[in-house]
Structures are given as structure tokens and as C-alpha cells.
């Protein structure tokens, strides 16, 4: 009986088709019609024309081959990148760009982590920021200007809202501007959770004067901080850390405040001992932990002009 199947190619093809459709329907077609596949976070906004142009560059140049955009709900991963990814963040992503490989770090929470200036410097020459990086340079994107007409067609195709002025303003933007704008929007729909303070106000540096800590602090500085503050800590993207005007104001600053700035980073206009931050300092608390941050504080303080 069953043997005849292998003598009837049409019947055989029909049975094969049914076998293939079973899994297809249950796993792919039916979920498509369920609510759970189309969630949208309350403060998720469609991309602006500039951000969309940046996303297109991200596609064009295959950034997704080396960078993921999904933070998994795993302890170390949330510490490293931030809040894990939510289904409702991706409603405007056609296609999704979650990626499958982390040759470079995940980018789902990179929006707002660094300043625009940092991104331009990094795209121009990634090794100026991270000496060991193998990322290609993308400064050349600045030589390619955007085409407003094309951008408008793309916004229309996706049904995203835009204004005429917004489209017109693209004329003097480059692909690099667009890519930076896209970077800065990544993860913006998910509110950043306030951090638990790692130390209490007024805590003293337990490692002050400790030479091992000084050496470790120097190593950490050179590997992670020098890119923005300069190898000599005299400032570049970030402020000078050696002058008397310690971070924009001429007065002593507590070790506990320096610790907090390193651990939590800064937001624009955030206040630290009557200083208004300019923002753009990323948070390093999860990476370094207490001991290494205190070592870093020890090193930084040793650089101050006496």
C-alpha cells in the first residue's frame, strides 16, 4: 500500500508538501496572526528620516554581521549592555537587525551611551579609541551625502511620519551623520533603570597611597579611559583630569564623587558637588567593580597638578 507512494511522483510531492507545511504553519504562519508577535512599547517612536537613512547605511555596510542588537536576559549580559531586549522595541524594524555574531559588542543599548563626538572619532578610526579593535574604519561615509528625494521615498514606503523641512535638511547631511543619529536612537524606547549606588556619600578611598592600586589604576586608565581623556589625561573628547579646574570648576572634589562619576557615568546638566556635567561619560560600574574603580581614583588623583 505505502509502497505505491514511491511510484506516484505527484502524490509523493503532495505528501512532501503537507509534511513541510505542518511545521511551517504551526511555527511561522499561525504566530504571525497572534498579538504576541506584534507588540509595541508605549514610547517607541518611528525612525526619523535621518535615523532611517542611518539604519539603511547599517544594512548596506553589513554592520549586523558583527554586531547584535539583542541583549539576552542573562545576568552578565544585562550588566555589560543594559536592560535585556523587549519584544515591543522592534515594531518599526523592517527588517529586524538582531544579528547572529558578536565580533564587536552588542549595540541594542548604545544610544546615548557615548557622545556624537565619540562616535565620529570612533567611526573615523576605531583604533584611536580601542587600540586592539579590528573594526574597519568608516570615516569615508562622510564623503557620501544623503539624497533627500530617495529618503522621502523610503519614509513613504514604511509609512513613517515626516515633515518637508526634515527631508530638506538632509541635503547637507552625510551618511556618517545618519549612522551616528541611528546609533544614538538604539535602545531609546526602554527607560534606563536608576543604578544602585555602589558606595555611600562621603566614603573615603581605602586604597589611597597604595602603590599596587596605583599601578593597576594606571593599567585600567590606559586601556579604557585614555581614548577619551588622552594618554596623559590632559583631555580630548572628555575633560582634562590633571588641571586645577577639576572638571569645569576650581575647587576640591571628593574621592567619593570621582568614584560615582566613573561608576555611573554622567548625564547632561547632572550635578556633582555643584558642578554641572556636560554628559557623555559612560558608566563603568559593572565593568570595574569597587576595587578597580578605587584603584582608578587613586591613579587619577596622582595626576592632579600639585
Amino acid at each position: 500500500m505505502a509502497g505505491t507512494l514511491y511510484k506516484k511522483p505527484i502524490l509523493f510531492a503532495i505528501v512532501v508538501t503537507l509534511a513541510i507545511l505542518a511545521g511551517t504553519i504551526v511555527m511561522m504562519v499561525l504566530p504571525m496572526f497572534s498579538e504576541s508577535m506584534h507588540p509595541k512599547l508605549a514610547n517607541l517612536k518611528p525612525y526619523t528620516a535621518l535615523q532611517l537613512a542611518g539604519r539603511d547605511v547599517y544594512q548596506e555596510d553589513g554592520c549586523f554581521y558583527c554586531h547584535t542588537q539583542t541583549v539576552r536576559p542573562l545576568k552578565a549580559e544585562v550588566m555589560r549592555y543594559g536592560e535585556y531586549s523587549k519584544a515591543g522595541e522592534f515594531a518599526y524594524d523592517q527588517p529586524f537587525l538582531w544579528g547572529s555574531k558578536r565580533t564587536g559588542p552588542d549595540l541594542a543599548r548604545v544610544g546615548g551611551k557615548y557622545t556624537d563626538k565619540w562616535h565620529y572619532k570612533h567611526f573615523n578610526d576605531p583604533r584611536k579609541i580601542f587600540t586592539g579593535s579590528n573594526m574597519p574604519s568608516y570615516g569615508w561615509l562622510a564623503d557620501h551625502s544623503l539624497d533627500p528625494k530617495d529618503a522621502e521615498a523610503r519614509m513613504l514606503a514604511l509609512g513613517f511620519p515626516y515633515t518637508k523641512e526634515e527631508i530638506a535638511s538632509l541635503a547637507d547631511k552625510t551618511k556618517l551623520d545618519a549612522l551616528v543619529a541611528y546609533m544614538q536612537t538604539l535602545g531609546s524606547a526602554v527607560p534606563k533603570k536608576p543604578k544602585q549606588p555602589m558606595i555611600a556619600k562621603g566614603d573615603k578611598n581605602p586604597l589611597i597611597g597604595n602603590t599596587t592600586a596605583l599601578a593597576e589604576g594606571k593599567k585600567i586608565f590606559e586601556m579604557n579611559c585614555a581614548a577619551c581623556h588622552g594618554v596623559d589625561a590632559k583631555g580630548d573628547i572628555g575633560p582634562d583630569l590633571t588641571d586645577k579646574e577639576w572638571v569645569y570648576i576650581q575647587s576640591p572634589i571628593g574621592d567619593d564623587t570621582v568614584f560615582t562619576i566613573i561608576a555611573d557615568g554622567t548625564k547632561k546638566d547632572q550635578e556633582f558637588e555643584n558642578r554641572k556635567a556636560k554628559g557623555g561619560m559612560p558608566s563603568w560600574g559593572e565593568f570595574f567593580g569597587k576595587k578597580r574603580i578605587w584603584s582608578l581614583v587613586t591613579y587619577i588623583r596622582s595626576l592632579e597638578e600639585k
Partner: protein
Amino acid sequence: MSEATVYEWKPVKGFALSGLFWGAVSILIGLYISIQMWMPELNFPPYLTYGRLRAVHVNGLAFGFAVAEIFALTYYIVQRLTKQTLVFPKLAMAQLYIFNVAIVAAAVSLLMGYTQSKEYAELEWPLDIGVVILWVMFAVNVFATIIKRKVEQMYISLWYIIATVIAVAVLYIVNNLAIPVSLFKSYSLFAGVNDANVEWWYGHNAVGFVFTTPILAMFYYFLPKATGLPIYSHRLSIVAFWSLVFMYLWTGAHHLVYTPLPDWIQTVGIALTMFMIAPSWGSVVNGYYTMGGNWDKMNTNYLTKFFILGITFYGLQTIQGPTQGLRVVSQLIHFTDWVPGHVHMGTMGWVAMTVGASMYYTITKIYKTEIYSIKLANVHFWLVLIGQLIFSISMWILGIQQGAMWKAITPEDGSLTYTFMESVINNYPYWKMRTFGGALFVVGMVVFAYNIIMTVVKAGKSTETDGTPAVATGGK
């Protein structure tokens, strides 16, 4: 044996040699991008950057090499197993020319940055239409020839070929549905989580129905042909076939473990992935038992070792793959270099070995000659084997290290032990080792191509029958 059947070998030759050419170009690009990984100065924007070349490498090998050889060897197998000449030979030749034009257009468009940026489905919509047309041309010829067959019973290989033709069509059309903006740009019809689910339903099964089922069709046909030994169990091949074809489509979600995809889809995907070990190993066991007491053929018949090592890597691949799907393993190795190590065991081990041996067999048959050099075929075998092992094993070691560094926590204060950059610096020696393994593999494939071409040249010198359809000699 129908001595009088006149077979149509021109499309077989055309696709076999086209695939050889595109394969050579694409593995050289693979070697180049493996160097870019540890020498970023070798990125020359805009066209020759890693982000664009990787797409050319993958698409070149999947479409330019694998699909071309699938067309070639399917047209060979189908004609032989049906004892029926190809029903529409002109259509097949038109398909050959369109195929080569499409591959050129695909390579150029990917270098230009025209991509849908879905893995294995990068080609933009006009090329997608081209791919569908090519596939329909293929399907028409395959089905027409099978329907007009002169042998009542369809052999195992034909089952796998029919499944390939149907599944690829369904997968490709659905996943590539897009909203065109211009000739060179489109946006996926699907969004976000749903798009991810469609893509990996496609992506996993593109592997299943391009790198698995048609290669199994070759294995089931050419292993018995090369060794003269019949397949061990017909019943086992029936069970393996139906369970494989049924289960493959359920498993794509194992690519999305721990993502925002609904948990039940992930879990069902993982569970069915575990079941996939059974049908895969059905074919592996069938292959081993076919050798029965004739393992001396590994020594005496130069093709046997390709098929047996090929099916061995298929067996390892189909144990490793499901294991990777498990949450406890995925959390460690997902997103690391382990995964390219896994993929390349399948492609460089299973696919390249099986296709290589099938090509040796087919070319000598249709040109009615002997292989140019068995010695070179053996050199080819060892280079490809050792190159692939160095590649895969170094990537597996690296992947575990990366995963461990990413999740390492310093016990004293609960902070992350390594920054991302520290993990990158750890990669370089392994990436260089991969390039070394890859280089051995490339040399092996060049030896293979040389051997095939010299076989064809030698045949051309001894007989001037090329261009006229060959007459089957019936069996061996």
C-alpha cells in the same frame, strides 16, 4: 538496462564547471575576509569591506557553488535514475545562461551594498525574482523528467530531490516578501519579532534544503555507485526521509534562543531540534552499514573516503547543532566564533567532501574517461580534511573562551572580569589559525578544480564527441 537511452549532459557539464568557477572565487573571498578579521587595514571601502565581502562569500558559495552543483548533479542523477533523457534540454541551457548572469549581478549588487540584510536572503527583490524564475525552470525539468520516467519505482535520491525543489520554493518566496522602494532597495514585509521568526524559519531550512537534502540525494546515489555496494536498508531510508522532511521546518527558532521571541516558540523549536538527531543519524548509520564488511574500499577506491568522511561530518554536525540549540549551551556559545566553526564543519566537511567526490564520479562518467590523477584527488582529500579541522577546532576553542570571558564575574565585588575589548584581543591568535586552516582548504580545492579541469581536457583530446549527446552505457 536501456542501452539506447540518449542522455542530455550539456547542462550537467555547464553547471558543474560554472559552480567550480564561482566556488573558487567565493572561497578566495572567504580566505581574504578571514585575514581582514585580524588585519583591518585590508578593508578598502566602500566595496571591499568585511561587511560587504562577507555577503559575497556566503552567497557565492551557497548560490554560485552549492546551487550550481545541485543543478548539475540533480540533472545527472534524475536522468540516470529515470532512464529518461531530460525533457526540456533547451530550458536547462537557458537556465544555465540566466544562472551565470544572475550570479554576476548578485555579486556586483552585494558589493554595491544592495542588500535586504537577512542572512542567506541578502539579494534584493529584482534578483529574488530571478532566483524564483531559475528555480521554476529547474522544477519543471525535474518533475517532467520524473513523470516521464522509464523506471517505475523512485529511488531514495529522487525523494530528496523532490523535497528540495518544493521546500526551497516555499521558503524562498515567503521570506523574501518585501516592499520595494526602488530597483535597488526594499523593506521587509514583516517587522521586528515576527520578521526574526520568518527569517530563521527560512535561514535554518535554507541550510536544510540546500546543504542537506540535495547533498543526501547525492550521497544515496553516488556512494553505492562509487563502491558498487547497495544501500544497507531501504526501510531505514524511508523512516529517515519522512522524519527529516517533517521535522526540519519546526526548528528555526533555535537560532533565536533568549531573544524576545515568545518562549513557547523557542522551546518547541529546541525540542524538535533534539528530535532531528534521529533522522540525521538514520542516514549516517545507513551509510556506515552500507560499507558492511567492505571497509577496505576506503583504501582501494579513492572516492569512498570522501563519502564516508562526508557523512561522518554530517553526523557530527547533526549532534553538535541540536546541542547548540539547548538553552544551557546557547547561553555560552551563541554569538561567539563557535558558530562559524560549526557552520564550516558542515560546509567544508560534509558538503565540500560529498560534492567533490560526486563531481569526480560524474565528470568521468559523462566525459567517458578516467580521472586525471587519483594521487591529486588524494592530496585534495587530505588538504581539505586537515584545513577544515584546523578551522573548526580553533573556532570552537575560541568560542568557548569568548563565551566564558563575556560572562566571567569577579567574585570579590561581583563586577565583570573582562571588558569587551579584552575578549577581542584574545581572539587574534585563533583568527590567524583559522586563516591557516582556510588556506590549506583553499589549496585543496584548487587541486580539486585542477584535477577536474585536466580530466575534461584529457577527455577532449582523446575523443571529439563533445557537443553531441552521449549514449548511456548502462550502469558501470
